[in-house]
């Protein structure tokens, strides 16, 4: 514990940790935001074109089984980025999260009751407006269930990026192991956990705000 106090007592260390935390937030949440957009598009394609569904979701499953470290290393070879480019992590995590979210989005769109989409069509909605204002909002609860898993998974996976030198809180682990010093490792674990909890709390709050209809009490009549 004395070690921990001494470690955090240094202003330089504290400012370095703060930078790592911000990097970590950026590296884990940017892919989350990008993949929501991608998963909504791909999920819609699966929902709309049944024949595409099997192929796309099968690919997504395979992609999800590729080890993260391998993916971080392969991406430069595929798209020609530098090996230490932080975009490798952003792209890799975007791929994972998109693979994770596409199926629930597609399932949630399939689960919108037929009489609700039929009613929307019969009221005179055009397809895009119907998708954005009726079908997608109804998919939000399922989408957020996927997002919560995705955010936690990203926050933990970003740490692995430190092995290829991309920054984030994972650097605390690599440093700690290299110098056989426990304090940075403990700080890294605690901050990673706190970050995951805070982001999860924010996602829950955002979901509640977006879906007031989903937590009113129904009547039996």
């Amino acid at each position, binding site marked *: 514990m004395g070690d921990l106090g001494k470690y955090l007592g240094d202003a330089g260390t504290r400012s370095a940790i703060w930078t790592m935390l911000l990097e970590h937030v950026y590296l884990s949440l940017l892919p989350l935001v990008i993949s929501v957009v991608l998963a909504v598009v791909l999920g819609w394609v699966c929902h709309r074109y049944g024949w595409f569904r099997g192929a796309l979701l099968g690919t997504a499953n395979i992609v999800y089984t590729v080890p993260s470290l391998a993916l971080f290393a392969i991406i430069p070879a595929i798209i020609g980025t530098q090996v230490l480019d932080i975009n490798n992590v952003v792209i890799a995590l975007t791929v994972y999260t998109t693979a994770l979210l596409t199926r629930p989005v597609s399932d949630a769109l399939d689960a919108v*009751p037929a*009489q*609700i989409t*039929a*009613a*929307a*069509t*019969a*009221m*005179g*909605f*055009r397809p895009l*407006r119907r998708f954005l204002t*009726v079908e997608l*909002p*109804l998919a939000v609860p399922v989408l957020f269930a996927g997002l919560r898993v995705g955010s936690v998974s990203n926050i933990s996976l970003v740490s692995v990026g430190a092995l290829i030198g991309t920054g984030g809180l994972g650097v605390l682990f690599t440093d700690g192991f290299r110098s056989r010093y426990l304090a940075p490792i403990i700080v890294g674990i605690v901050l990673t956990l706190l970050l995951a909890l805070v982001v999860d709390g924010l996602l829950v709050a955002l979901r509640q705000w977006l*879906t*007031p*209809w*989903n937590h*009113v*009490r*129904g*009547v039996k*009549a």
Partner: protein
Amino acid sequence: MIEFRAVTKRFDDGTIAVNSLDLAVEAGTITVFVGPSGCGKTTSLRMVNRMIDPTSGTILVDGRDVLSVDPPELRRGIGYVIQQAGLFPHRTVLDNVATVPLLLGWSKAKARSRAAELLELVGLPAEMGKRYPVQLSGGQQQRVGVARALAADPPVLLMDEPFSAVDPVVREGLQDELLRLQAELDKTIVFVTHDIDEAVRIGEKVAVFREGGILAQYDQPAELLARPADDFVAHFVGKDRGYRSLSFVDASGVEVDPVPTVVVGSRVDASPEWRLAVDERKHPRGWLAPGTTVDGDLTEDVLKPGGSLFEVGQSIRGAMDAALSSPSGLGVAVDPEGAVVGAVTATQVLAVIEGLRESRS
């Protein structure tokens, strides 16, 4: 007016849903499409607003070929009430009702104030506008569905089995409500149902479809019951169509006799005859069986439950049913306020029916 001209719909799998339909729905009337499942009634309805396009033939709404209009534009001008209401669960009741005005580009404030008017029109309290559909009963949701369809004041209203998912008592209330609204609004309404009772109850004209999408008969409900075009229609309108057709004979020829009454809460003597118990407003409460002795004041728990009531001047079916369902054999007639005016026996009603038949032939 809605006109089907030689309209045929053949689905991709080869089934013919609608077979060369020729039919004109008159403006300002309720026309009911009725038939067993797979008879093409819903397909015919959905071709009016191009939810389904015909394989061949023409559909005209107010003289305009629907195929010449952009579907979303067409649909915004035609009200649509779907089975189980189909309300948007993520929107408040008020915003559900405001849907079409918003699609038409009205301002939010104007659309919502119009929606509030509509809620009032269908008999829902204004504060219900803030709720979500899941917080409403089935019957209330159905009213919201009707309000939503009427919001932009379309001349034509399509109703696809709108009341099939609610229980019979609520359904009857909704049917009455629709008739009341129609008297006020004078829309051209096409109503699809598989329930012949519902069809003859609310339809000014009824189109009976049979399997294969063929129109079997298109007539006024009384004609349909009295003179079915063929065995299929006769079978479809049911065994008790003779009884049901009494709905279209008014009961003005039925003379009611005075009925002995006792007042709940007062003292009564024993009597050898059936007596009708009433409250202080003369509303019937039940029957007091012959020979019943009452200690102290008359209370409702000694009464036999009454039969159905019929209102003077309404259909003779009600009079007959009142007599048949009454424990005393006396059908109770009431005035529009619900106060007792007298009673009739089934024999008396039958005599009136016989008399009418003889005078017709």
